[in-house]
């Protein structure tokens, strides 16, 4: 078991580079599941998202979530990258890669990490509207809390 790779960064990430880094030299991995979250334009209403984070705690919380997933699903590898700062529609926000011997653990591991990341990792989205009006903070969704509850 390799320690999870956790990064909080303003710059973009490259999906293929991250998959290659996770699987390089490995012959035990039979399944790799990736999730990429992108910024939507909300039917042209959104100019940009601003991602605020709690430096230090964001990494620490992502690591706690990743460690739980590694153990629970016996993953062989896990990468979680979350961006902060201004993100335009079409750009990447978050990446989760889960590697396992078989597909079910890889799917479940990636799903678990995303459900917890959305509700427990200290990041907040502010919307900047296309018409230039002042940004609004995105409200938390009950559906995200419900999604997390299914893992109890």
């Amino acid at each position, binding site marked *: 078991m390799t320690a999870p790779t956790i990064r909080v960064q303003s710059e973009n990430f490259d999906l293929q580079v991250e998959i290659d880094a996770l699987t390089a030299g490995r012959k035990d991995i039979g399944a790799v599941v990736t999730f990429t979250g992108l910024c939507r334009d909300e039917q042209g209403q959104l100019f940009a998202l601003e991602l605020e984070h*709690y430096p230090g*705690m964001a990494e*620490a919380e992502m690591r706690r979530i990743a460690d739980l997933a590694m153990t629970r699903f016996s993953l062989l590898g896990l990468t979680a990258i979350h961006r902060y700062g201004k993100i335009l529609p079409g750009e990447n*926000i*978050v990446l989760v890669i889960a590697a396992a011997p078989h597909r079910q653990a890889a799917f479940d591991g990636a799903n678990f990490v995303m459900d917890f990341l*959305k509700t427990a*990792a200290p990041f*907040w989205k502010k919307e900047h509207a296309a018409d230039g009006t002042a940004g609004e*903070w995105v*409200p938390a969704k009950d559906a995200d809390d419900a999604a997390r509850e299914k893992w109890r």
Partner: protein
Amino acid sequence: MKVNLVYFAWVRERIGKGEEEIDLPDSVVTVRDLLEHLKGLGEEYENAFQYTNVIRVAINQEHVEHDEPIAGAREIGIFPPMTGG
């Protein structure tokens, strides 16, 4: 007790600063006491902590519930529900 408070998102905006060190009276024992104490510090705090039940708190960068004692905290993060991912 002196403690460093850090604020994020709309909590930070409503209070008008990202962090501050404050000296707490001995009567402040739990996170809930802290939020009630902060609420009394002025209009901007009252505005930020109007509905304390939605406020999330982390002590030394780990999530805690509102009944958690704050004794020994070096840094207390105070913020709205998270919306990353």
